[in-house]
């Protein structure tokens, strides 16, 4: 009886030792993997930081200004900004934006758009840049 207990306990101890060894082996492996990922993460962060600095350097305002002509860009002027209430009769413009379905005598269906009587024109106000 005693011998049976001893054998069972020994087997259990050996199994437990094996399990602990496996667990430790896996933990060490995972730890190494974690360290590798952390190192890579740190490295990627620095790479990202370098790219951000590169971008910030490349979009310097003086550099963009030099390329503005090639890109067809013009400086903003106050003439390009207007107050909403300065824009003609807004109701008419809104009406013009809503097409009305009309059936012609011929039976054809067309969209009718109303032309505003007065619309805002930058050129007419002499404010074109």
């Amino acid at each position, binding site marked *: 009886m005693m011998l049976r207990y001893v054998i069972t306990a020994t087997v259990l101890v050996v199994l437990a030792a094996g399990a602990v060894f496996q667990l430790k082996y896996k933990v060490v492996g995972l730890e190494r993997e974690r360290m590798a990922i952390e190192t890579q993460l740190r490295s990627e962060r620095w790479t990202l930081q370098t790219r951000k600095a590169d971008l910030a350097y490349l979009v310097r305002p*003086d550099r963009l200004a030099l390329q503005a002509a090639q890109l067809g860009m013009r400086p903003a002027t106050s*003439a390009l900004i207007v107050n909403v209430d300065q824009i003609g009769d807004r109701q008419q413009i809104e009406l013009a934006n809503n097409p009305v379905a009309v059936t012609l005598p011929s039976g054809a269906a067309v969209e009718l758009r109303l032309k505003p009587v007065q619309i805002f024109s930058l050129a007419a106000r002499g404010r074109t840049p």
Partner: protein
Amino acid sequence: MQPLPANPARPADAAIAAGRRRLKVLSVIFALAFLSIGIRLVDMVVSGDQHGLLVKSRNPATPETRRADITDRNGELLATDLLVPSVYADPLLIPDIGEAARELARILPGVAAPALVKKLEESKRFAWVKHQVTPMEQAAVLELGIPGVGFRYSEQRVYPKQNLTSHVVGFVDGDNHGRAGIEGSFNERLTGGPRQGKDPLVLSLDLRIQQIVHEELATAMRRFRPIGGVGIFYDVRTGEVLSLVSLPDFDPNHVEEATKQSQWNRATGNSFELGSLFKIFTTAMALDTGQVSLKDSFDATAPLQIGRYRIHDSHNEGRWLSVPEIFMLSSNIGTARMAFAAGGADPERAFLEKVHLMARPELEIAERAKPQLPRRWVDITTATVAFGHGLAVAPISFVEAAAGIVNDGMRAPPTLLKRDPAVPIQLERLVSEKTAKDLQLLMWLTVQKGTGTHAQVPGYLVGGKTGTADRADPVRGGYLRNSVISSFAGVFPIDDPHYLVLIMLDDPHGDAAVHNLRYGAWTAAPVVREIIARSGPILGVPPSRPGADAAMQDELAQALGASARGTGKDRHVATVANAQ
């Protein structure tokens, strides 16, 4: 014969007992040792390795120790840390030191072969070849493939916008410690000191406006050849500095190449006599005391004699001038008389203290100049201070004070950091709303019909004040001849003030196009005009409504007519006579 011991087993029993005792002691010691290790292990698992011993011991290479980034108000990167390689050598592993040194010196600028040979021969296992090399230099070293030559990485502060924000952002030393500007004053915040985060530090600067001010000021520097220039763009409602430029400037990536002149922050770290710009304060003081109104007039028919000094006007009108005329024509005589009419030295000094001009500017950087105040405040001091001589302040101090006056008399504390719109600003009243409105009208009049007409901008109502001050002679005392500080302060839109722009040129030289004149009206005002014209649309400032000019005209007429006083002439004759 020697007798046998009484109990021969006794010595063996004693030895066994002693051995057991020793074993017990040893067991206790081992148990304590294992217990302490166990407790420490449990502590590290539970507390999560607060001291970072595990990480540190396993990752000696690149811990996250970088400084936080600095950005402008729109998130544009102004300063960041990069990991930069430095070249080192292990002399023991290098087959031919002389040949290696020659090859390295050939591809690495600043490295001399003889010095490197000496260094390598004197070192045993480690010697630096060159600190912080560029990626191209690193590639060239790798290409050489010399055994025993390698790289170590360290953080280096980089400023992608180079000169553009150098005086605000500042720079760091070789150990990455802040030494000037924001880098210096926020060193602990940027390095992640106690309870500090690694979030970027967001400045109030707007890089787009900074570029415009920098570009226009640089153009004026090339044209008028001053020894220095200052440009400040300020939000009068929030106290945020949107742009601060001091020229000449420097590249903070190469501070070692910067001259002392270029490292001076003239906008905050130097004091200047700002001349007629100070008439804003004298006029505000006179109006706010109630002793002077817009309807009053002062005698400017002849120079003002105070003791042995005579005060002149650069353009003598030879007649009595009303307060609006004194301001828009920038009359020294009229302004001095106005200061006396308002009560003289005491109220003048008290007012300058009230608008914070008698103390260092309140800003988050260390480069803040103390004002240079007169030693005695006698009558001639009262007169000269009234038109901006005899008292020197930093340009940013002027901007802070003037902004407080034009913003309906309410001063917002100045800042170089972006404000949180949800946090209310602690405003301080400098002058009454009525005085502030009067000043707005006078500044508008100056740009419409006075000395500031060169600052008119199509689409915007601009107000302003010109300034031309004689430059002090630092060697012999007194003032230099034909050497001035020209300036212009513009506010827009003046009917609802939002931004203040100051341009100051230190010793400009007029060209033929400006009739060789050095006045602020001819040199600085056009620069402000260009800055407002370019920056207004970017900031979304709507153009002034049609008829806004007429409305200002009506308000001025109403202000002039609303005064319940008489002409004021007789009253001020006596005051001025006292001054003489």
